[in-house]
């Protein structure tokens, strides 16, 4: 299994965790993103994720490199699911191992925030009363430089 993976199959968290096990790790922090039913008044029936798969996997790998630069000796594994997901399904599983626990907490948080900035994956919400591509696509956020901040070319 790849450490940075986009899959159409359901995610097995243990397989993601197994990839960051290391004899010098004192902690493994795991973040699991799941499909939420209610967003305010809106009821989600199911979700559809789409990705630019080869680039998405490369960007996940870059996040792993960024984490290693920020938190030395950290090992990261990330699997993101695409396709149709039902309520409570796992959309993303992130595991980070580090020598000490504080770094593992911080790095796993960093990974999920960074996914939402630079990884080409899109979510389509299928609500009880219609559907919508999520991702600020109404033009309220722009990228004057043409690429996300902090992305090295």
């Amino acid at each position, binding site marked *: 299994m790849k450490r940075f993976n986009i899959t159409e199959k359901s995610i097995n968290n243990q397989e993601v965790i197994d990839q960051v096990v290391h004899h010098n790790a004192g902690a493994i922090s795991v973040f699991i*993103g799941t499909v939420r039913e209610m967003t305010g008044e809106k009821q989600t029936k199911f979700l559809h*994720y*789409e*990705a*630019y798969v*080869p*680039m*998405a996997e*490369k960007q996940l790998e870059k996040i792993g490199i960024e984490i290693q630069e920020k938190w030395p000796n950290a090992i990261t594994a990330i699997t*993101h699911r695409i396709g149709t997901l039902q309520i409570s399904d796992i*959309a*993303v599983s992130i595991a980070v191992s580090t020598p000490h626990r504080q770094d593992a907490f911080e790095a796993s948080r960093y990974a*999920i925030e960074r*996914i*939402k*900035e*630079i*990884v*080409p*994956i*899109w*979510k*389509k919400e299928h609500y009880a009363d219609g559907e919508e*591509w*999520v*991702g*600020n*696509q*109404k*033009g309220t*956020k*722009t*990228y004057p*430089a*043409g*690429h*996300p901040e902090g*992305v090295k*070319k």
Partner: protein
Amino acid sequence: MMIKILLFANLAQQAETERVSIEVKSPLSVEEVRNMLQNQIGKLSGIENALVAVNEEYVDLTDQVNDGDTVAFIPPVSGG
């Protein structure tokens, strides 16, 4: 020379396709590709807010596109 274009999410939905090829005479900028694309298939609402990747790496609008390159228009992402 030929340039391959990839569209995703709401851009693919509007274009009713995920792949477009455009024929050009000489290397051109990412911004010029964006204009030519819309001349060919029609206006795509929101494409000015899309990030752009050439051969799977983010680029600037002023960067050059060459023969055989793959240009992807990436609407604001929403993974996680």
